[in-house]
């Protein structure tokens, strides 16, 4: 499927938007810890330069973890997949 973001607008996940989303569930301090730890586990450093593919890797790691991080990771994966699919098409 080719990308069709011009007719189907979709917001781009960013570190800031993910922190805001996770912070709404965990509180901002815990959200920063969870995301920083997950980034480190996937060989990344949590900063504003992370792109959607990086966030997808972090989400994939989180989705394998127990408890709240798993469902937060699934939600982030879906948001990243939606953005990547509608802007770049399926690989």
């Amino acid at each position, binding site marked *: *499927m080719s990308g*069709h973001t011009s*007719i*189907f*607008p*979709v*917001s781009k996940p960013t570190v800031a938007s993910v922190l805001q*989303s*996770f912070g*709404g*569930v*965990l*509180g901002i301090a815990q959200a920063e810890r969870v995301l920083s730890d997950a980034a480190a586990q996937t060989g990344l450093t949590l900063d504003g330069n992370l792109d959607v593919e990086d966030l997808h890797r972090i989400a994939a790691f989180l*989705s394998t973890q*127990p*408890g*709240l991080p*798993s*469902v*937060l990771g*699934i*939600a*982030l994966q*879906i*948001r990243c*997949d*939606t953005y990547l*699919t*509608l802007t770049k098409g*399926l690989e």
Partner: protein
Amino acid sequence: MSDLRESSERLAEIARLSLGTAEARHLLDELAAAASKLLELPIGLVSVVLSDAQWFAGQKGLTGWLAAVGGTPREWSFCSTVVETGEPLVVADAATDPRFASNLLVVHEGVRCYVGVPLITQAGHVIGSLCAIGDAARKVESRQIASLRQLAVRAMQNLESLPGRQVSAC
């Protein structure tokens, strides 16, 4: 109860259900198929509403990118309304319903008819919606909604008795 605490407790309940196991996935796909058949609509879904997205934990009849991604951002979700109200939602013609006429799934993916009922845990958390979706406007009979609700209750009983369910440490 604060929104933060409610949200955390509901999401923790979803995590404890371990819906990603093969056994749960099989049950959820069967449930989605049963919803599709019951409502005589082409798509059946078990949509689990997360903090920021809806996750199609079970699906029947879904095609294209929505099937590949396995969910959507929460702001596009009809099922989010079911979670927020805890009540069934029937949209006979989304294109003429002011609540949903501008929804991207209506405008770009052709969703027209939606029937969803809440999936409620024993602890009282609404984790998502069992729903059926069609691409044409149509009326839904009250007996069909009642049957869908019964199906959702039985499904939650089955899901909560699966062996993979994690036990709360609390």
